[in-house]
């Protein structure tokens, strides 16, 4: 399970809008801090952590939507939703593969052969699911999404 990051610059007496901006920007950075690991694909925790951070970011954006101008907000929200969904396709397969690998150890040798076939099938699906994720990262870089997102949500104190 992932734990929430400590968010600096928020306080009960500060304005809602200032805190909303601070939270959104913090979660954005937290999400992107796992991007390199997610691209490498060796440690499945990176995809998990990036998706969890994207969900926290979306939860914040859902709650604070009324603090922002509708149209630019909607565009940024949709992009974050795409990130969550694309990461989710990979993460769901990681969860299944890990579970079946653990379950296989409790079965007879004959039964393990069946499960190995299923694991290989899921590993192929995982490789296929990684392609849209990697393509999305390239697209985000090319469209300068990060600059636009951070400029829109930057904190004005």
């Amino acid at each position, binding site marked *: *399970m992932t734990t*929430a990051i400590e*968010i600096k610059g*928020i*306080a*009960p*007496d*500060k*304005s*809602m*809008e200032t*805190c*909303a901006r601070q*939270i959104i920007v913090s979660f954005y950075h937290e999400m992107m801090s796992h991007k390199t690991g997610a691209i490498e694909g060796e440690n499945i925790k990176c995809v998990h952590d990036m998706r969890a951070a994207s*969900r*926290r970011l979306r*939860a*914040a954006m*859902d*709650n*604070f*939507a*009324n*603090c922002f101008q509708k149209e630019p907000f909607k565009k940024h929200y949709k992009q974050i939703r795409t990130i969550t969904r694309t990461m989710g396709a990979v993460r*769901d397969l990681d*969860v*299944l593969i890990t*579970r*079946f690998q653990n*379950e*296989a150890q409790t*079965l*007879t040798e*004959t*039964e*393990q*052969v*069946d*499960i190995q*076939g*299923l694991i290989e*099938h*899921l590993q192929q699906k995982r490789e296929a699911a990684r392609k849209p994720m990697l393509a999305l990262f390239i697209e985000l870089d090319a469209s300068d999404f990060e600059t636009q997102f951070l400029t829109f949500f930057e904190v004005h104190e």
Partner: protein
Amino acid sequence: MAKPHKITGLNPNGSYHENALIILPQKVQEVYSWEQFIHNPEQREELHNMRISIKRLRYTMEFLAINYDKKFHDFLTTLIELQDILGDIHDNDVVLETLTEYKENHETSTLSGIETLIARTRKNRNTDYQTFLKKWEQLSQENFKQKLLEIIAS
């Protein structure tokens, strides 16, 4: 997955604390909107939606926690426990779907390993569902919702 309920009545110029009091009761309400479905174990989608709503409430409570004292965190711990039990139910549902689909596409083989896991997962799913119902019932008897709303309003 159901969309989150829209938060209304927010005051961007008001304080963070003032707005916590507006946001959180609406998030609690979203969770309880799924309560009507929990007594049917076959309502997979609705149980999953309840889990997602609990997760949204949990994340919201985490970043609004600065507005509250330690008691608030005890409620957060209970919500995480509920989310985990519902997560186990959902994981079992996904595993069952995966195993069944794989079996259907490999009808020519015996696949005893797949059969063993289907039987085991069904049993686990039932146990997890009963655990959830028991926990939910216990929380209802303890007036969890009312107490949570009181903490939020404090």
